[in-house]
């Protein structure tokens, strides 16, 4: 789950330079209802530590400065691997779930 979430976060960041709460909103709107910023932030920090994302501080119209994340080349390579791996896993799981008694 944790690895999948990291992949999803990276995908969102690859599409748009964005900040923590906005990432959370995208994830919540796409089925990850129970997530909090507390779950997202350590994962983004980990992606930052691994060199997959970089950040810059930008002023926010609402108040405090925000960390805006963008993807790095290393992150893009990781994302491509993640997507390929996910497609294979997805395909395998779908095949297994579609199995019937006769096929076994």
């Amino acid at each position, binding site marked *: 789950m944790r690895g999948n979430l990291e992949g999803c976060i990276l995908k969102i960041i690859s599409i748009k330079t964005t900040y*923590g*709460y906005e990432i959370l909103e995208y994830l919540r709107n796409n089925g990850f209802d129970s997530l*909090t*910023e*507390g*779950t997202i*932030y*350590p994962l983004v*920090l*980990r992606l*930052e*530590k691994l*060199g997959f994302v970089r950040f810059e501080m930008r002023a*926010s119209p*609402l*108040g*405090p*400065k*925000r*960390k805006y994340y963008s993807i790095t080349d290393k992150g893009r390579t990781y994302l491509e691997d993640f997507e390929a791996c996910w497609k294979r896993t997805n395909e395998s799981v779908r095949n297994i779930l579609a199995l019937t008694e006769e096929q076994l």
Partner: protein
Amino acid sequence: MSREIRDELRRVTRADKAVINKMMSYLYTRSINQFELKNMQAEIVGMAAEGALRGEKLETVCGPDYKKFCDELSANCLHKSKFELFLEVVMILSMTCAILLPFIYFTELFFGDPGQVNGIGILLSFEAGQLFGMLLVPAFCGGLGVLFYQRNSFAGKGKTLLLYILFYFVTYFILRVLSEIFLHGEITINVLYTAVITGAILLGSFLIKRSVASARMKAKQAG
């Protein structure tokens, strides 16, 4: 604390400020690089401030278990190197000296008999003033230590407290021996030497630790 963080803290509710204090105390015990810790503080305060604007509590934003959240943060950040930890110990020791030496000196001056203070042997004597000083100083500093420990009980368990008390008494006796040798119960040039050396060690360890931490943080940011 930087001005920016202070400004943001104004937007945070009192309850959230209490949670932030707990988080920072908890993170402080995780041996995190001082600049990383400062960044984290800014991030947490920013999260709380944004949460407050949306009408959410920090516990809703970060999850109900702040320790779990902090553990996850700590797992992904830059920690102090062994050299930084060594410098921190030197800094704490010299700070202890800076606090205790004058305290011992003045306790002795007011409650002891400076004329008789001429060697280590006096440590074993039980003159009223000496005994009072020996009890007063540990009571004062030990009390502060226990208070700190209670406020930050996650920093360690019973064993840590015992170690702390042991460490304190050992430090106290070392300092006492040093004060007998250098101070002799009188304000002489030796007092100045002690003060200068303690101050130099304190300042030196602080500055070196700061520059090492800063260099490591810059190296991390540069990738």
